[in-house]
């Protein structure tokens, strides 16, 4: 078996496992650790696809900066697991069907891809073979050029997503405060 394929499966498994830990961990810190592992595994996936820049930025930005902040605040807040779970118990009824739909969609997508290309999995080695990609592929120059020209809008749009997330968090926290005042 090709080393890259092997690592692809290893990292893929770890990423999925990290995601599952994030979903099912009772303690928020453990969930954050799951997310962190998932991020690192994603970086590994990028790396075996020869996209070194993306892999490294994945680690610097997500694992090194955002996760540190998340864990920092989780520690400061010292959320007790039970309260945390109770407030999210209702979300299962809305989130569950959405998750199910997404899963069906992805399975369908995979099915169509592999239906069209019977040898897709074994061909992956040729896709990620270092010999077949140009020397400069995944370099910082190419990455920057692509990011700041072609994907400029997407890049900026994602940052609005983060902004939206911040607004959501503040609104939730404020609601919580109001609830506590009545106690």
């Amino acid at each position, binding site marked *: 078996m090709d080393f890259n394929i*092997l690592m692809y499966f290893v990292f893929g498994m770890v990423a999925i496992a990290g995601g599952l830990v994030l979903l099912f961990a009772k303690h928020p810190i453990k969930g954050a650790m799951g997310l962190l592992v998932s991020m690192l595994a994603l970086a590994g996936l990028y790396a075996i696809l020869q996209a070194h820049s993306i892999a490294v930025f994945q680690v610097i930005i997500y694992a090194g900066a955002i996760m540190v902040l998340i864990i920092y605040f989780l520690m400061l807040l010292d959320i007790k697991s039970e309260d945390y779970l109770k407030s999210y118990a209702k979300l299962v009824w809305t989130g569950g069907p959405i998750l199910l739909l997404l899963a069906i969609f992805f399975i369908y997508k995979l099915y169509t891809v592999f239906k069209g290309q019977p040898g897709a999995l074994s061909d992956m080695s040729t896709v990620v073979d270092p010999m077949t990609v140009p020397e400069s592929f995944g370099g910082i120059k190419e990455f920057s050029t692509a990011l700041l020209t072609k994907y400029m809008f997407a890049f900026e749009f994602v940052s609005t997503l983060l902004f939206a997330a911040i607004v959501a968090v503040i609104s939730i926290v404020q609601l919580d405060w109001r609830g506590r005042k009545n106690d």
Partner: protein
Amino acid sequence: MESTFLGINTVHFWTYLFLAGVIFLFMFMMGAVMSWSERKQSAQLQDRLGANRAAIPLPFGKKLAVLGFINNLADALKCLVKENFKPQTENKVIYNLAIFFAFIPAVLSVAVVPFAGVIKPAELFQAWYLKWVPWLPEYFAANLPDFSFRLQVANLNVGLLFIFAVGGINVFGAILAGWSSNNKFSMMGGMRSAAQMISYEVSMGLALLGIIFIYQNVDIWNLVQGQSELAWGWLPKWGIFLQPLAFFLFLAAAVAENKRMPFDLPEAESEIIAGYFTEYSGFKMLLFMFAEFIEIVFVAIMVTTLFFGGYSVPWLMADGFHFPWGATLALSHASVVLLQVFSFISKVFFFCWLLQQIRWSLPRFRYDQLMHLGWKILLPLAILNLVITVIIVALGGF
């Protein structure tokens, strides 16, 4: 037909595996040397004698103390055999995971650093002083006449960023250890270390941006290559000459990242016992200490590589010295490689010594002083340095 192992060229595989082993071992040895110099050097500069008691008894009443090295062995032995205390925490997994987050990045990031230039084994083993294994030069000359590799474990084209990425993960070691120890002092240590490391990472990154702009690269190999060149025909293009301010900023920020004196607030003994690793004992504590020592070596390696030309020796080319006044001194390939390795390691040793000297000379900063230095001094200076560099580079400077 080249043989392959898991899709990788077998010779490449074994070469890089061997290289990784050697460099890993080198880092460990350096860690041991640092823990020795932590005692002996501090003793020398404080007019003491330092650890010299532990010794192996020899026959005829003699003792083998080896300048206090046996103390290190005794320490390691003690840490291995002593009772392993565990705190009453519900997060045993994270408690144990934190050690790996602290230790692995310390040894991982050295993978992208070149220890010497290109090595051609077929030529290398021709030198009379390297003919230890008789069949080795014949094997390389017969089978792989053109095989060459760099003395660098991973040839990443984003090497400098890789170091930043791994250094960012390093924060988790302290923060998770502090949190999972279920101890107020550990928690404070973890918090302090997280705040400190995040603050100084900013200045460190900005200081290094100048280097990146000047050499137009983030590949460490190319950075060192760039520093091997000469400016005006005589001055090596070392980072210290082109970016003197960045050197000082980087040195301060790197010491702060390393959590050593005078920035050792996360483990300030007089305030919070041992900070984030208060609750670790025995071998786990040893790993934290060892990670710290290896990080000193790594800071020295970074300073060497980025500001002092890495392995490069002034005016040494692949075929020997080319002095600026026109004289040349031809050297064999093996001699050049050994000179480069020696140059690299001696520079690293010097900076290790300097870092220890700084650590044992200075008192600890107060927390507000630490933050003041990080955000109000280092950061503006780094930005200033960056702006000036960008203007000079845009004007076509070097």
